[in-house]
């Protein structure tokens, strides 16, 4: 009898530092039913099959429910309307075609190679400044000193969010990111707090978008709000899209940078190789995405009976796409628990796959490449202070909360 509580153990914070033995257990059944009825897809072949399957819906978010205020008009009329609007205009990661496709196309219009590649210089400046700032110290916290502030500054630049407003987002963003965590998002208190946070950030975005319409600048939000001669998405979708991009910029790349540096510090030989040969960076990054993906899993809902790996996932089931487990499937990757940037044919699912493949992947690759290469080249004798480091609470958006590194100087 297979253990049908393995995924619950994955969610348990006690296993955050090393969930990989649990993943290995899970993979013994590439599609495993859990005691709560969830189906966890952890085998590479099975994941590849379902990630392209149109019967898996991303519209699995519990409906929005604003908390009671005691004011009958708000509780019975206004907030009910707001809940309905929220449900109908989810951010596109929680939407299915055809709506998803239309929204994604408009985002991609603003997120093309031109705009993304133009960020190289800016990312380089930011990274240099952040490393310069730790000169004279013998300990750094990578998360506070670089991996959190870097993507945040970049996404604010890109969207056109004034940097003085940025501190307000930290709390908002952390709150909204719980939408990806299965336990938190079913919790009534979290749902209420999410709805409240959404309203706050939406009010801010509403004003910001109005400003971008009045005086457009060369940023994504101006482009999305004014359409550049093309179709413009509705205002509610525009706000939820802007919030999505902002939250994604705050909560994902941070893990990729931190996981990358953590992995390199655990494999000093690879760190030295990257230092000596920055051309290796793309291989290193792809291997980090396989080995320690910043988004460990996503959830879906089955719209029909889906047969995969000799298991039928019944219609209506919750499905977990366990990317981090598939990325270490020994049937697909030889010696999967070894960090090996020279691996051939490294077709990982670190950025997802299919319809919802990460829109920000090219941007993340640029940020992480510049960050990791600069850290390896400029930090003198970096050593991990604590291993394993303390982790953030998220099981899906998994990454260290702090990463203490001792250094002998800055080059």
């Amino acid at each position, binding site marked *: 009898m297979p253990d049908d509580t393995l995924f619950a153990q994955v969610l348990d914070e006690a296993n955050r530092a090393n969930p990989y033995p649990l993943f290995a257990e899970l993979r013994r059944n590439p599609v495993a039913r859990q005691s709560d009825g969830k189906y966890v897809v952890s085998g590479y072949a099975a994941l590849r*099959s379902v990630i392209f*399957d*149109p*019967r*898996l819906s991303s519209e699995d978010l519990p409906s929005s429910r604003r908390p009671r205020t005691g004011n009958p008009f708000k509780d019975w009329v206004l907030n009910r309307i707001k809940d309905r609007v929220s449900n109908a205009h989810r951010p596109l990661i929680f939407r299915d*075609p055809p709506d998803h496709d239309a929204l994604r196309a408009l985002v991609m219009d603003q997120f093309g190679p031109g705009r993304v590649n133009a960020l190289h210089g800016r990312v380089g400046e930011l990274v240099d400044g952040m490393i310069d700032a730790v000169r004279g110290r013998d300990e750094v916290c990578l998360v506070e000193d670089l991996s959190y502030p870097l993507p945040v500054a970049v996404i604010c630049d890109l969207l056109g969010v004034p940097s003085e407003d940025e501190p307000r987002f930290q709390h908002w963003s952390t709150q909204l990111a719980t939408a990806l965590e299965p336990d938190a998002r079913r919790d009534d208190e979290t749902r209420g707090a999410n709805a409240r946070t959404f309203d706050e950030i939406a009010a801010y975005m509403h004003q910001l978008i109005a400003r971008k319409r009045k005086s457009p600048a060369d940023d994504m939000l101006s482009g999305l709000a004014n359409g550049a001669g093309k179709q413009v998405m509705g205002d509610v979708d525009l706000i939820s899209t802007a919030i999505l991009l902002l939250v994604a910029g705050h909560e994902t790349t941070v893990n990729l940078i931190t996981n990358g540096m953590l992995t390199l510090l655990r494999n000093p030989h690879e760190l030295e190789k990257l230092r000596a040969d920055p051309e290796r960076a793309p291989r290193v990054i792809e291997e980090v995405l396989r080995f320690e993906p910043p988004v460990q899993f996503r959830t879906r809902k089955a719209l*029909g009976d889906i047969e995969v790996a000799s298991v039928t996932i019944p*219609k209506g089931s919750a499905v977990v796409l366990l990317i981090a487990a598939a990325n270490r499937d020994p049937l697909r990757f030889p010696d999967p628990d070894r960090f090996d940037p020279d691996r051939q044919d490294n077709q990982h699912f670190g950025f997802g796959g299919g*319809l919802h493949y990460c829109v920000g992947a090219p941007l993340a690759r640029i940020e992480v490449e510049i960050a990791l290469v600069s850290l390896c080249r400029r930090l003198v004798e970096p050593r991990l202070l604590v291993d394993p480091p303390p982790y953030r609470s998220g099981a899906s958006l998994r990454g260290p909360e702090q990463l203490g590194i001792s250094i002998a100087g800055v080059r």
Partner: protein
Amino acid sequence: MVVGASLAGLRGAEALRRNGYDGPLTIVGAEPHAPYDRPPLSKHVLAGELAPGATTLPVLETLDARWRLGTPAVSLDPRARTVGLADGTALAFDKLLVAIGAQARPWANADETRLTGVFTLRGRDDAQALCTALAASPARVLIVGGGLIGCEAASCCRDLGLAVTLVDPNATPLARSLGAKIGQTIVERMKRAGVDFRPNAKVRALVGDPAGRVSSAVLHDGAAIAVDLVIVALGAVRSVSWLAGAELQADGAGLTCDSACRALFADGRPSPDIYAAGDVARWPNAIYGGRLVSVEHWGNAVAQAIHAARNMLAAPDDQSDYVHLPAFWSSQFGVNIKAVGLTDGADALAIVHGTRASHRFLAVYGKAGRTIAAVSFDQARWLPAYAEQILAGAPFPPIMHASDQPVVERLAPGFPPPRAAASQGAADA
């Protein structure tokens, strides 16, 4: 030895090395160029976005090969195990991979073919010549044939701002591969792009001016169109003439192989030494009940060459069957088209995602109650799921309960009647 220095030849040679073959390796190619990629020729290259010379394929293994480029193979002697080249030399081989491909089907009238301004599009040199001619802003381009190459060329010419007439013998372009119902979407895209599409029409003759430049085309009904550039896009003929004396089963349909990619002798025995892959090969595909098929698509060239190379190095009792689900893609008139499976013999069609009106949909083809093929217009992300349905022999139409599945619309696919055998070699338009 590998005969053919294009995609299949290169990938086959790489696979030989990757699988451990360390003996001498010779690669023979008719063209003087190192292996290059053909799909961009009728797309980005014609549109002027990519130089013809920028299509060279990356070499993924250390080949350490002797290259005989620019010297076409002209004969094969399976008994002596030699290949004769155009320069008179004969090269011996132990094992041979025939990956020679196909050529553009020429215009039926050789005199008319020689008129200045009449082009075909198959190789890099063709693309180079055509690009140069298009850059001179011809007043009207005539494209003969509405297959993939014809449609892609028409799309590029319109992007360049040139007036385009496309003549096709069927009711719509791509009718033979996708059926007229889906082809109708292409007609609408062409209309929107401003292509003068002439359905159910044939070109009877190309007429030149006294200087030997093409000046007009006469259609089957006697109507004349003034043109100063003609692209003949009548499909391809497989390069088998050099195999005439080889006692192999080679004809206009390709070089026939067994399921392990071994070329068949006239008496039906498989050759132990001669393998084939890519456009030229014709083999029994288990997915389609062992029917002999040849697949002139990029993905097949790669997969079949790799498979054949593996078998070339394996023992005679360790030959594995090549099974392949054909697939192709095209970009034209702002639409990304992807298809999997073979539509041959399809008797039903269903739109399973999107709508034809939006020009964004996924359609599946059925034959005798089973799903055999699928095509997507700007909807490619769902295609792999339907590829699995085809491989599983799923019923038609597969009701997926998909996230954006409309009420499934069932249609007749509208394929033209099969070509008469006699017209196989002749002009199709």
